[in-house]
């Protein structure tokens, strides 16, 4: 993922899949629109569920997905998660 992309929060994996979808289905506007909608919903859910944050962590630290890297990611994120207010 290029730093400064307008859609931050997509992993390289997702961007790859998006390109494939667009290429394969791009000729039909409605299908293309649906594919874009699906991608946005998927990215939103990945952001809400911190999957993108973990991907960004892996990119930043150049680590591989593993028990150890996830433990470090959670440790780094612990204070933020614990302080994150949730409305009534």
């Amino acid at each position: 993922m290029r730093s400064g992309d307008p859609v931050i929060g997509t992993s390289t994996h997702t961007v790859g899949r998006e390109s494939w979808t667009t290429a394969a289905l791009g000729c039909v506007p409605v299908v293309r629109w649906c594919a874009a909608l699906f991608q946005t919903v998927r990215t939103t859910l990945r952001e809400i569920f911190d999957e993108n944050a973990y991907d960004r962590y892996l990119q930043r630290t150049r680590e591989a997905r593993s028990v150890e890297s996830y433990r470090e990611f959670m440790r780094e994120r612990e204070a933020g998660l614990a302080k994150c207010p949730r409305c009534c």
Partner: protein
Amino acid sequence: MRIAKILIWLGIAALGALALATIAWSRKESISALWLVTAALCSYALGYRFYSKFVAAKVLALDAMRATPAERLENGRDFVRTNKWVVFGHHFAAIAGPGPLLGPVLAAQFGYLPGTLWIIVGAVFAGCVQDFVILLFSVRRDGKSLGQMARDEIGKTAGVVSFVAVISIIIVLLAVVALVIVNALRSSPWGAFTIGMTIPIALLMGVYLRYVRPGRVMEASALGFLLVVLGIFGGQWVSHSSAASFFTLGVTTLAVLIIAYSFAASALPVWLLLAPRDYLSTFVKLGTIAILVVGIILVHPHLQMPALTRFVDGTGPVFAGNLFPFAFITIACGAISGFHSLISSGTTPKLIACEKQTRMVGYGAMLAESFVGIMAVIAACTLLPGTYFAVNSGPGMVGGSPAAAVATISQWGFPVTMNDMNAMADAVGEKTLFFRTGGAPAFALGMAKIFSDSLGGKAVMAIWYHFAIMFEALFILTVLDAGTRVGRFMLQDALGHIWKPLGRTSWYPSIVACSALMVGAWGYFLWQGIRDPLGGINSLWPLFGICNQLLAAVALCVATTIIVKMGRARYMWVTLGPLGWLVAVTFTASWHKIFNPNPLIGFLAHAHQIAGGPATADLQRRIFNDRLDAAVAGLLVVLVTVIVIESVVQWVSVISGRKKAACNETPFVPTQYAEEAL
């Protein structure tokens, strides 16, 4: 093209006016819920298209060329430029909790009209504006929190007041939502089993996420959701088995278990329980809200509750107090909620890629939340009024027994029979539905009715009811464990100024002590609620509403001060109007809760009334509780008065020219993404 646009907007305005007129003037016959949906959607469309655009252009002067903190301070952790739809979803998931579901259900005792109008008008002119302006002002200040902005823009006292207001609101909020869950699970083996199962499921998800498939949160959440659904069916089986008595719990046992659980959740590592539960709750929340919207639109039920009930005079059995001001503090989150200002000045401003997106995220997400509130009004008002009052009234308000409650409620003109209530309880797999105060069971009944009408029929009503209870309880438990933890961090921050080791968030004695303090504080109010013969909600929900709306008043003081300091005093009415309204509402409500001579409303009058009884330890405790509640309401009013006065002094100084109009914005830096912005 231009004429076509004008015609479309005129059509939307006309349709909205027709829908509002229909819900406002229908008295004799029940109306379709679709009128409420139409009125809300048309008002939201007009509010977003015209009012928010006016605020964005004239008041805030949004500048697409200004770099946001997500661009300038990007670090891949907190500050990340993010797609606007993604931020919208993230923000909505954070602001949507049980509040917009429970408040409107409780306020339905006045009829469907007051709640609906307040949710629509309050959101468009107050709640959305608050969320929008606070988000933008935080974006222009490197993502600073509300407390920091209050200190920088108004003064040091304002910073202290907002800290006290936030701590108070968290304590009262946690107590009141814990009370709701206790009332929902009381004597309900099915519910207790299902909710109990969510704890090992969350622990299992924590272990799965950490050791089995690291970071695959959506996968783990889907798995957790499936297990929760199995738990619902398991609960049905348990409720008919010999284990039913083990899960049939009284209010005291439930309160102790919830307090112990929250203490553990606050002290345990975040990955084990808090994070997985948060993910699971969000997963269920987004899915269920979407299903509820679709269900209501498909079924478009008729409302059984009248537009206005006799209880607008303040004699309501759900909570005592007149329509003004109590309807406006009972419904907070669907119309305006001070708590939102914490989120608008928390995570969200650090994700905004372009200033112009604050309109869609801040104003738009609050409109979506308001729509959830409308869904809750519909769910409550589709119940027969007699059933609604039998479920939602405390024993002290309608007589101590089900038979007395039936007689009292029928006498009010809302017919209900023991047979009706027993049949309803049977249909949803409960032993009784009498005196289930707090709003959650009534909402679950309404939701189950709508769901079963659209999918599965009466045969699956019990499953839908317990699904709804599980959905609300999951929300509430997440608020409880995350809220206790947030409160613990705030306490540690504050106590660290007195003795440094107490401020260390990794020092275990401090973790345990501050968790115990936090749990003890809200646990005290919870205990008070479960021992209250009037049902607890009668005292605690108004107190919570007052705290929440006073926090909104603090946020609007900050917003108005910044608008004045920006040199745009001629537009200060945009935030001053909602501020004036909230001050009138909360100060009047506080006055009534403290000094009203009716013991059902005034804390001091209630203390005075029961003081005449035999002097027992229990009586002394109840008198002390009433005085404590009065003191909390009084203290908050005094603190907010200080902040309002301090703000007014600032406004007068700037407007009269005695002080230079300058605010503490981060200096302008041009964005590197000008092409995108244009």
